[in-house]
């Protein structure tokens, strides 16, 4: 069992990059890895052929103008105000998917963007629903994502901000100064993902014990197996069990 899993390795080791397996005509800019096989079985006598499947994991593509609806109003207002402040490149790209708009923001500009979004009259995102971390081990150089959901009660609109940081440098500026509600949310994301929010007034663990090693919600966090009282057998940790991929 464990040998099989060592074999899976990372895609880099196996010499397959996302670009090599993407169908012609599809975009790879938002690809975060590849999915292999189907039944989770490797190296066995899988005669179905499905074990050889290689499928890229591609997230929704960058949207082009016009975005439609009020999305353009928000994007225009944000762009104009960012231009005034000399932050034209703060928004890396905009993704609209399933009727929700996501602004991917350069991490160093996050506090300025958040302040603009909160204070500008045309934007007025006065309510932040907190931050949620996501760990994409396959998204090289931007493994850790922090996702903020903002709500404008004035205009009744919701947007999402997404900021990324590499595993090697897990720092993202804190926006507690703009949205005090993010105090606990940033502590939780630090606790679970190890993202260090620079400028947070007291970035300590919040859900896990203070002396806990590691950050449990990361995809590379080791999970425990369960020994069972039958001939020394054990139930493997969930991430090593055979599962559909």
């Amino acid at each position, binding site marked *: 069992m464990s040998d099989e899993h060592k074999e899976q390795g990372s895609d880099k080791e196996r010499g397959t990059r996302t670009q090599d397996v993407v169908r012609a005509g599809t975009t790879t800019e938002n690809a975060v890895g590849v*999915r292999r096989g189907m039944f989770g079985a490797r190296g066995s006598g899988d005669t179905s052929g499905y074990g050889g499947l290689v499928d890229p994991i591609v997230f929704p593509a960058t949207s082009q103008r016009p975005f439609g609806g009020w999305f353009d109003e928000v994007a225009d207002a944000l762009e104009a105000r960012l231009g005034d402040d000399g932050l034209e490149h703060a928004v890396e790209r905009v993704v609209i998917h399933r009727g929700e708009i996501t602004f991917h923001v350069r991490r160093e500009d996050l506090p300025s963007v958040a302040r603009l979004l909160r204070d500008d009259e045309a934007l007025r995102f006065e309510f932040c629903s907190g931050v*949620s971390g*996501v760990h994409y081990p396959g998204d090289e150089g931007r493994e850790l994502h922090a996702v903020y959901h903002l709500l404008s*009660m004035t205009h009744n609109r919701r947007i999402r901000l997404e900021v990324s940081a590499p595993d090697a440098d897990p720092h993202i500026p804190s926006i507690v100064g703009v949205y*005090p509600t993010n105090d*606990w949310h940033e502590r*939780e994301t630090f606790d679970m993902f190890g993202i260090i929010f620079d400028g947070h007034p007291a970035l300590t663990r919040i859900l*896990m014990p203070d002396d806990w090693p590691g950050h449990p919600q990361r995809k590379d966090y080791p999970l425990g197996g369960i020994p069972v009282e039958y001939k020394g057998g054990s139930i493997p940790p*969930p991430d090593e069990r055979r599962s*559909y991929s």
Partner: protein
Amino acid sequence: MTQDVYAGSSETTQGKVFTVTGQDWDSISEDLGEGAEERVVVNMGPQHPSTHGVLRLILELEGETVKEARCGIGYLHTGIEKNMEYRTWVQGTTFCTRMDYLSPFFNEATYALGVERLLDIEDDIPEKAQVLRVLLMELNRISSHLVCIATGGMEIGALTVMTIGFRERELVLDLFELITGLRMNHAYIRPGGVAQDLPPGALDEIRDFVALMKKRLAEYAALCNANPIFKARLENVGHLDLAGCLALGLSGPPLRSTGYPWDLRKTQPYCGYETYEFDVQTWDTCDSYGRFRVRLAEMGESLKIVEQAADRLAGLEDAPVMVGDKKIAWPSQLAIGSDGMGNSLDHIRHIMGESMEALIHHFKLVTEGFRVPAGQAYVPVESPRGELGAHVVSDGGTRPFRAHFRDPSFTNLQATSVMSEGGMVADVIVAIASIDPVMGGVDR
């Protein structure tokens, strides 16, 4: 001074430590002697009957005045979000329903709505499923508010409020049991619809409950609204105005007690709430009493919605409660057999005796589950405590890549400091009770 095996020394660098476990108060004051300090740090909880669950409060007191109040949480952290990443999308429902154990249907609903948005089947959900969701969510709002008012009353010594609160809640739980089979942890609202249809006779039971509850709500109002002791404990306690609520991200009754009618059921409707007639309840005192009145009035509004939902259900007999897409909908209906609830015998006969393809389909859908297109969604709902939202991320697989719950208890609990600092110790309890945190939701 009793000996505490867990805290061997009572001399620390921070000053003398006292362990108070219900002994005579005089023994403490004797021990303090002449060098008594006015400023003491009191650790309250996590096992304390008045902290609304396993919440730990660290209070810095001067006499009986609270100088600083901080919360310690995490005592009920169970890793639900991590666990969901190793289960199928449908199984996720059974995990998230356990988070905020007083409002399970809301946890299920926001998760199911997020998954449905990613699947792009939001418009395909059958009407009956939506009405059932609304019906159960509103019944759940009543039961949750009842517990809030009941435990809040108990914590200030109003034990009758507690007994009558739990009495009525029991009636709601009976309805849950009748409709879903369970009093809590229902896993009833699932991506694509709901688990099963209404059982026979359920509508009559619901109507009986509404009729009874209308009378009982008036009793609550008569017992509490103008009760001088109740008012004296609640009024002007736990003050937080609109600006404070927005800065700290408070939603739900604390926000509405500032007079701002923000209710996602009205402002960003889901599950067809825009088609129901009800009012958003507000109060304008920004204090614990206002939050109590908002909750009490909201229960009345919920009864109105339950009535409307019951009327609609009467006209939707035998309508589907799951999406038609057989690649998403659970393959079988549940039925009561001689050994309890399980897959219906008709279905077992079909897959075991009639159709090999149906058996394969059943097996694939139950073990592998369905795939959800890559992307992320956030569909918040108005839970009894405020904005509850699931940030659902899929990488195109059969299991959630990440599910994060923005729980209103977690966010609202941050207001403990501002609501209680500068007040009396006894008012800390009232302020926290008015936030109504449920630690299962806070810690997840």
